[in-house]
């Protein structure tokens, strides 16, 4: 009985968990964390079972309230969904574990109940985006998760976070409005909201202006949500002033789900036939992505604050995924979807390490971290591994995904973007090597000697997620065939149009 309903349970359970957290926090504040943890654990297990089922039997369809698809809301899980869902929930699980000790310093104690409630609501929204097969439902879940993200960014003690969160709210709402207009256009043109139905009805209408308008609105709206280069202005403030656990969560989960929504709308709703043949948008994507890679890295080099540097590096990493989408052949798409995994793993690790430095020493700027590797060895090693993956050194998962993207660029004859990828790696090496040099090869300044000497590796509940992610960077690179087994069928589905 239950196995048929896993699709809906993955969305319902965190919502129930959120309200249970609220009630439990009313009784005793200590109960909040275990309930949140158990909820996400259950969800993670469900997502693994879903992925297994999808790989065995093909896509799962679930009709909400037994209404048939064109009228009712349909939840669909295919290999891409299942893969993204597993990645998202894995990261959420580790972020939740990490948050327990980390937020003690950064959030007032009476807000902890609200923190975990909103945390679970965000995960509910994100899972909803991942499983839904209905455009309007996607908009609603996008708004649920965005509202939760605004609240989480502003939840800390940092003063500037409030204004950053407000800017995020304004930009996010504009993007949501654009997506809403796009959905309206599509609905007026076709009279349906179901993604599969839309893909079936759209081809005869490809020439019409309405469809092109809708497409442009979708692209602009989702570009704001994913912080594609010219529209990234809300991102650095929001990422760097949020509490560390929240930075790790939204940098991995929120941005990745935005990319997923972009892929879904580009390749499932508007089939490749439209985006490649009808309007030359893919070339535009490639160039914007190339600019994003270079400019994001250059801006990251100029930063002095560690979390801010990571935020700008997120902008540049997002460029790689968009570049892969823009090249749009099977090798590049494989690399792009693998990059969703690798960027989530390494960015999560790096933000967690930055949070651990703040937790142990209180230092935010890079120069203060001189000589920190002697007293926090494990954290420093994790930072080194994640950076190596971000640069793209061979055994790591970052290397594999960049390799596939470059392969795709070569296959389609766009050798220029291979140069861009290499240049991006070089710039990444420049800004991250500076941090590593400070951590390993410099002596601490006089003023900070006592603080650096007194620092320790963070407590186990923070260290375990960091080390798990760091080892995942290497393991996913060595055993890359395991994720590829899921990614390849999803790429054929996306590009084949079936």
């Amino acid at each position: 009985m239950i196995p048929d309903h896993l699709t809906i349970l993955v969305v319902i359970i965190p919502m129930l968990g959120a309200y249970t957290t609220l009630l439990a926090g009313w009784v005793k504040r200590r109960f909040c964390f275990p309930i949140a943890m158990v909820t996400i654990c259950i969800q993670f297990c469900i997502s693994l079972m879903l992925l297994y089922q999808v790989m065995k039997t093909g896509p799962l369809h679930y009709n909400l309230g037994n209404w048939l698809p064109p009228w009712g809301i349909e939840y669909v899980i295919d290999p891409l969904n299942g893969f993204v869902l597993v990645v998202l929930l894995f990261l959420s699980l580790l972020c939740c574990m990490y948050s327990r000790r980390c937020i003690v310093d950064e959030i007032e104690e009476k807000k902890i109940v609200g923190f975990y409630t909103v945390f679970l609501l965000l995960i509910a929204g994100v899972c909803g985006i991942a499983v839904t097969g209905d455009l309007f439902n996607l908009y609603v879940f996008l708004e649920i998760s965005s509202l939760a993200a605004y609240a989480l960014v502003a939840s800390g003690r940092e003063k500037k976070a409030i204004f950053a969160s407000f800017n995020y709210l304004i930009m996010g709402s504009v993007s949501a409005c654009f997506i809403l207009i796009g959905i309206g256009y599509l609905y007026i043109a076709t009279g349906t909201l179901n993604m599969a139905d839309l893909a079936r009805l759209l081809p005869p209408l490809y020439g019409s202006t309405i469809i092109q308008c809708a497409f442009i609105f979708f692209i602009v709206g989702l570009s704001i949500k994913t912080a594609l280069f010219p529209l990234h202005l809300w991102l650095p403030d929001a990422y760097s002033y949020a509490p560390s656990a929240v930075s790790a969560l939204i940098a991995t989960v929120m941005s990745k789900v935005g990319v997923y929504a972009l892929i879904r709308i580009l390749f499932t709703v508007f089939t490749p036939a439209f985006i490649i043949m009808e309007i030359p948008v893919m070339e535009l994507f490639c160039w914007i992505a190339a600019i994003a890679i270079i400019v994001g890295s250059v801006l990251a080099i100029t930063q002095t604050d560690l979390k801010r540097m990571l935020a700008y590096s997120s902008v540049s990493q997002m460029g790689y995924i968009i570049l892969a989408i823009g090249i749009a052949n099977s090798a590049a798409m494989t690399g792009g979807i693998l990059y969703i995994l690798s960027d989530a793993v390494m960015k999560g690790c790096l933000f967690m390490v930055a949070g651990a430095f703040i937790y142990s020493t209180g230092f935010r700027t890079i120069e203060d971290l001189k000589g920190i590797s002697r007293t926090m060895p494990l954290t420093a090693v994790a930072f080194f591994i994640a950076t190596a993956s971000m640069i793209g050194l061979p055994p790591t998962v970052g290397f594999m995904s960049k390799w596939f993207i470059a392969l795709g660029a070569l296959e389609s004859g766009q050798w220029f973007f291979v140069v861009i990828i290499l240049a991006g790696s070089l710039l990444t090496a420049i800004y991250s090597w500076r941090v590593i040099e400070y951590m390993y090869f410099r002596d601490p300044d006089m003023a900070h000697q006592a603080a650096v000497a007194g620092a320790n590796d963070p407590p186990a509940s923070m260290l375990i997620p960091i080390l798990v992610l760091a080892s995942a960077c290497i393991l996913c690179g060595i055993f890359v065939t395991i994720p590829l087994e899921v990614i390849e069928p999803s790429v054929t589905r996306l590009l084949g149009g079936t």
Partner: protein
Amino acid sequence: MIETFFQSFFLRYNFYMAVIIMLIGLYAMIAKSNLIKKIIGLNIFQTAIFLFYISSSEVTGGTAPILMSDPGTVYVNPLPHVLILTAIVVAVSTTAVGLALIIRIYETYGTIEEDELLVQEEKT
């Protein structure tokens, strides 16, 4: 040429009006420096989109989508109405979150003008 323009204008002037109001709202969100004005602009923007949806559901000679006993009744399309109900809920939650943030900004900085806020941010 000009005649066809007028014809199409009077057929669909709802949509033209919706676009004008949308642009007013977007202008307020971008150009106004007061944060409350920005939220007001957001509200105007969102309602204009709802107007766009509702206009799309109109059917000539249709009545409200409430079940009548007469089988020959023509109803307007109820699906956009349901979508907009959901979107109104989202809009009011966004407004509430924005206002709560504005109150905390005022408590921290003592102002809700964006330019003054930016000056204060530079200082710290």
